[in-house]
């Protein structure tokens, strides 16, 4: 799915927890997320903290979309 959308010319950022699987399916811009059942959240935290965490992740995703890359890139940090 991610590959076909990118093939159509859109920059796509794949935000997911299991990076090797993302690499296997051929995503190019990859941002690691928190955990499989809650990639953009952490139920052990307060709702406010959780949202801040989510926002930081989405910011990372947008940055990835703004970044030119040569090949598969994992945006850590």
């Amino acid at each position, binding site marked *: 799915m991610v590959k076909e959308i990118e093939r159509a010319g859109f920059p796509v950022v794949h935000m997911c927890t299991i990076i090797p699987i993302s690499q296997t399916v051929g995503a190019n811009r990859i941002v690691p997320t928190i955990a499989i059942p809650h990639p953009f*959240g952490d139920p052990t935290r307060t709702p406010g903290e959780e949202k801040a965490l989510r926002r930081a992740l989405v910011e990372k995703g947008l940055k990835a979309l703004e970044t030119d890359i040569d090949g598969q890139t994992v945006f850590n940090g």
Partner: protein
Amino acid sequence: MTYRVVHYINQFFAGIGGEEEAGQRPLLKEGVVGPGQALAAAFGDEAQIVATVICGDGYFAENMDRAAAEVVDLIASCRPDAVVAGPAFNAGRYGTACGAVCQAVKENLGLPTVTAMYPENPGVDLYRSETYIVETTDSARGLRKAVPTMASLALKLLRGETPGLPSEEGTLPQGRRRNLFRDACGAERAADMLVRKLRGEPFETEYPMPVFDRVPPAGALKNLKEATIALVTSGGIVPKGNPDHIEASSASRYGEYDISGVDDLTAAGYGTAHGGYDPTYADGDADRVLPVDVLREMEREGRFAKLHDFFYSTVGNGTPVALAARFGREIAEKLRNAGVDAVILTST
């Protein structure tokens, strides 16, 4: 006896017209039309094209299920022994229609089918396992070469013979493994292969590993502030009640959901259809899988121009690659028409 064959072609090859006539609904003409001439000649006395079914590529693409059913009804009315579709060369919608017709004929009428396409026609990946597809060049210049190959394969199927290897029949492989006895025993073949590999000589593996093709990365977003961002997920986020009945695994469909005016995916309104992980957290707050709430905030703050009004969702778990690829192509088409600039795809 003479076998009865129905030929399926599009509006263009039927001489009705080009893109302006792509909305042509399915229609039946007795006997041979257009490229059917050459096909009939190749059949000789052994088979006869009793009718030609014609459908516009646009109509078929926009009404896949209905169009296929209508075409099958027309074909069935001719009581044929086999169906030949195309050749479609590199025409994507035509190839997809030919494949879909062959699949529907196989499923509903149980008849042998043959079509023909250029290897990169998107219809190949979608339907290669459902029908025999003769390999053609990318344009109609290859008609003369393709037609006799299609005819001889169709005759073989009509006679109940098992087709030979793809290289012998001129077809694109269907992706099924078939047993055969080779000349030498396996150990000898392996030792020979090793010698060749070590010498750097060409050799052919007997079992190609499944391959994952790559797409070069699309260029970066130049101006985020003016961009429309769309959300797509394989995490199965759906409105409560799962209105499209997306399956928990091996999904056969995806959903398109309007989020214009939605600021937050609340537990009351959204949950997950995904059967591949513990759903407690996504059901409690679907923003944990599809971060609509923070994207809405950022949209208001002007970080980017617009969050696209629809999100697209399916379940990635166990869905066949060819199907997922089709979802991707269809979603991409919709996003393009909607003027989307970039995509955030979330997975669990």
